[in-house]
């Protein structure tokens, strides 16, 4: 029998606000343990939370970017549980009135993955196990998170992967998070069940917690899918439980069963007031949203005529896409820009991470200047490429690397004059060509290039020569 995978995702994303959700402490990653803390975020008796409104704005941006409705009235709740990294013994989160609801992300196949809700909450600290002891680092406590919950809409591991990648890209574009899985700023809990193909009823689900890499997630899902099928095939029943993925064994293992499930005793956080957002405020935030990856892709392919593969590579990195867009300003053939970026500039940014950060020595305006010269026929491709290399090496603009003289004589009228001179100076080559010796044309072109010291646009020179000889 074949089994269908049914999966839903809860994704936690750390927001990249400068300060924490309820106090002024920095959210910087990688500081000495317990140095980014204050009485509020370590929950000292008597302290009160103070909502960072940037968190609300970022969450609304995330919601709008994933087609969510924004609740005008929202509130914070306490989720009570005891764990040493949770300094107040409750997490301030949102229970029944999340900030955003009913959104979706569209996969390449056109399938929509429905987003049930997005809510804001505080992160907990972290346990550190060292020298046989356990320590608590509260630096991460109070870092703002959004939790994005989908419907159980996934039917394959590839869909899950594609969704997370798309989500990650959208959040990076919107600028609300750096979504670095390895630093834990994007973590997924996956709900998974299986059912015989064609069956309507959902199977019993398990939840795999805290996956912070694509590889782990794919492995864990595959393992759990196979495991559940084995359980069913052997005539047993899948138990509803929380599991974790152990990378050493490549297996998922039980963390706690349904009977040990936490009773979080949610209730309204009395220390904070209602979060109300007007429609005007929502629209104002919407107007600040940048163009999203899907729209960019669409524009690159349909307006710029760039191949889908190339367009996807450019749109995959927010900084590259922004650089590309700026470099395309006023350019007729945007394809030249994407080609220069992908075939030439990217040689200097071989890894994903480097493309991500895209710390390039020249500005987009500088590339734009260069491409406009190509566009206007003042610079041929070969010269343009070598100039770009020099620009990337030195960080200097094209005006400092190519002299006026280099650029002179290559515009169309100047080129026509040179071509005319070459034609009249080489009557034998002209007649050879007319007699069918195609090689003779090459010597004419060679003459033009020599006369212009290689600055001429070969295509244009060919066109002019052909006109003159005919």
């Amino acid at each position, binding site marked *: 029998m074949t089994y269908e995978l049914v999966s839903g995702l809860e994704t936690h994303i750390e927001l990249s606000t400068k300060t924490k959700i309820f106090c002024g402490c920095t959210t910087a990653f990688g500081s000495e343990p317990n140095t980014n803390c204050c009485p509020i975020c370590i*929950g000292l*008796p008597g*302290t*009160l939370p*103070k909502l960072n409104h940037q968190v609300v704005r970022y969450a609304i941006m995330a919601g709008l970017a994933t087609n969510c409705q924004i609740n005008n009235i929202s509130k914070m709740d306490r989720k009570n549980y005891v764990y040493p990294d949770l300094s107040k*013994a*409750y997490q301030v989160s949102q229970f029944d009135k999340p900030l955003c609801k009913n959104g979706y992300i569209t996969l390449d196949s056109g399938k929509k993955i429905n987003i049930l809700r997005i809510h804001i909450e505080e992160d907990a600290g972290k346990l550190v196990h060292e020298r046989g002891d356990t320590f608590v680092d509260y630096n991460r406590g109070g870092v703002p998170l959004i939790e994005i919950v989908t419907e159980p809409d996934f039917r394959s591991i590839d869909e899950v992967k594609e969704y997370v990648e798309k989500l990650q890209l959208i959040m990076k574009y919107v600028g609300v998070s750096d979504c670095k899985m390895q630093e834990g700023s994007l973590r997924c809990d996956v709900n998974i069940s299986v059912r015989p193909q064609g069956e309507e009823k959902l199977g019993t689900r398990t939840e795999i917690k805290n996956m912070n890499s694509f590889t782990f997630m794919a492995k864990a899902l595959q393992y759990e899918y196979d495991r559940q099928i084995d359980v069913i095939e052997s005539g047993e029943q899948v138990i509803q439980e929380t599991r974790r993925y152990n990378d050493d064994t490549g297996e998922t293992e039980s963390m706690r069963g349904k009977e040990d499930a936490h*009773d979080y005793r949610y209730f309204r956080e009395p220390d904070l007031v209602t979060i109300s957002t007007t429609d005007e405020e929502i629209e104002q935030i919407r107007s600040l949203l940048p163009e999203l990856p899907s729209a960019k892709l669409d524009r690159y392919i349909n307006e710029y005529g760039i191949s889908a593969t190339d367009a996807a590579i450019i749109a995959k990195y927010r900084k590259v896409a922004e650089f590309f867009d700026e470099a395309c300003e006023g350019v007729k053939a945007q394809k030249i820009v994407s080609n220069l970026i992908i075939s030439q500039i990217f040689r200097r940014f071989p890894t994903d991470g480097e493309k991500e950060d895209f710390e390039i020595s020249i500005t987009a305006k500088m590339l734009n200047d260069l491409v406009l010269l190509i566009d206007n026929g003042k610079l041929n491709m070969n010269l343009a490429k070598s100039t770009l290399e020099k620009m990337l090496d030195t960080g200097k603009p094209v005006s400092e690397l190519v002299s006026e003289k280099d650029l002179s004589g290559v515009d169309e009228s100047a080129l026509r004059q040179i071509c005319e001179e070459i034609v009249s100076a080489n009557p034998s080559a002209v007649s050879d060509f007319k007699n069918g010796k195609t090689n003779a044309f090459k010597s004419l072109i060679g003459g033009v290039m020599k006369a212009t010291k290689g600055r001429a646009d070969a295509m244009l020179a060919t066109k002019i020569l052909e006109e003159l000889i005919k």
Partner: protein
Amino acid sequence: MEKTKGKIKYLGELLRNKEISCQELTTKYLESINQDNGKLNAYVSVTEQEALDTAKAVDKKIASGEELSPLEGIPMTLKDNISTKDIETTCCSKILQGYVPIYNATVWDLLKSQNAVLLGKTNMDEFAMGSSCETSCFGGANNPHNLAHVAGGSSGGVASAVGGNIAAYGLGSDTGGSIRQPASFCGLVGLKPTYGAVSRYGLIAYASSLDQIGPITSTVEDAALVFDAISKKDPMDSTSQGGAEPTLAKLNQDIKGLKIGVAKEYFEGVRDDVKKALEQSIKTYVSLGAQIVYFDLPVLKYALPVYYILACAEASSNLGRYDSIRYGYRTDENYHSIHEMICKTRSEGFGKEVQRRILLGTYVLSSGYYDAYYKKAQRLRGAVVKAFQNAFQSCDVILTPTVPMTAFEQGFSSKDQIETYQTDICTVPINIAGLPAISIPCGFDSKGLPIGMQLIGNTFCESTILNAAYQFENACANQIYKNVDLGVKL
């Protein structure tokens, strides 16, 4: 000293007129604490150095001819649940033994910036849970009018200290009556401000949606003075809105035509002598030109269960953080897991009443019980709020007893919890509705124990109830205040 003249103003004049230096005044108070705190058990810690340092600074100002602000140099105390930087703050619980805050509560910052002289931290029911101060891990505070009776609770230590003249005034906190009830028991004035009038930042939470800090003082004028100094919108407390307007300047306004509401439900189950004193007070008000408006308040019967459900629910969450990992008491017993360490610590560190309320609160929030208890209580809270709103359509002030009785004998509370809870009936509805209320003395019982009258105002109408109380105080000061033979005599 005249009985209605504000004590704070009186002491301030002594300082300004250089009849006594601030250091002498402070020393007098410190000496009297030394002498009488053994009888009262009002203070759980004395901050002699802090007090003398501040006094010295004040004397310097006086010597240089600088103007003193109203609370400057006046010796006072804080309930031990108000965070004081570098000064141990325990909530009178074993679980917070040795806990020294690294920051100041906003109210203490405000007072300290005026050079208030902090004599020490005062006794209270553990985590403010109790009506007699007897759940304190330091034992209860005693009533200055009769040491065999309790000072009340939970701010019993403040009331005992102010009533026993070993502090000029103090700040307490009131979640269900914890300022007004001990003020009533000790013959003092206690003001529970509108929820949001005073910042809660630094007040160690019992029930966050009900807690409010306020003054316990010897006279109404003192209460107005202190309230004006602490009611301020605080960016550190999102629920704070600040006071409506300064109240001190609004005292001494004619109350002719003031509509005073009286609800019969508020007088059910009230002891006869208390009822009689209240009836006499109503007559006084009539003679002052006030108009009495009778109305029904049937929702009152829900107030107690609503209070105990909501307060315990919030407490169960607020007190979850005492796990001994970061501060406070940790069990000496062996433990094999962090879970066991936390369990043992909490079982040993919390007293019985606190454990009872944590369990009750955990229960009412648990899935399966939430709807029947917590949710229903929230709905009823709305009904209580509405009932008071309606009442204030037809009156300016509501007059009730503060407590249906006078100060309990020691040990009363531990005998019958339910009966003790019931003594909160007059005060808890006010916290549920978030309203301001003041308790002022209105007579004595046959044993000479003070009887308290509560005046309730509409939200942010502190000046209305303070003025009404002030007029009453002026009319019958000789019948409501009595000197006790304790503490500083000036």
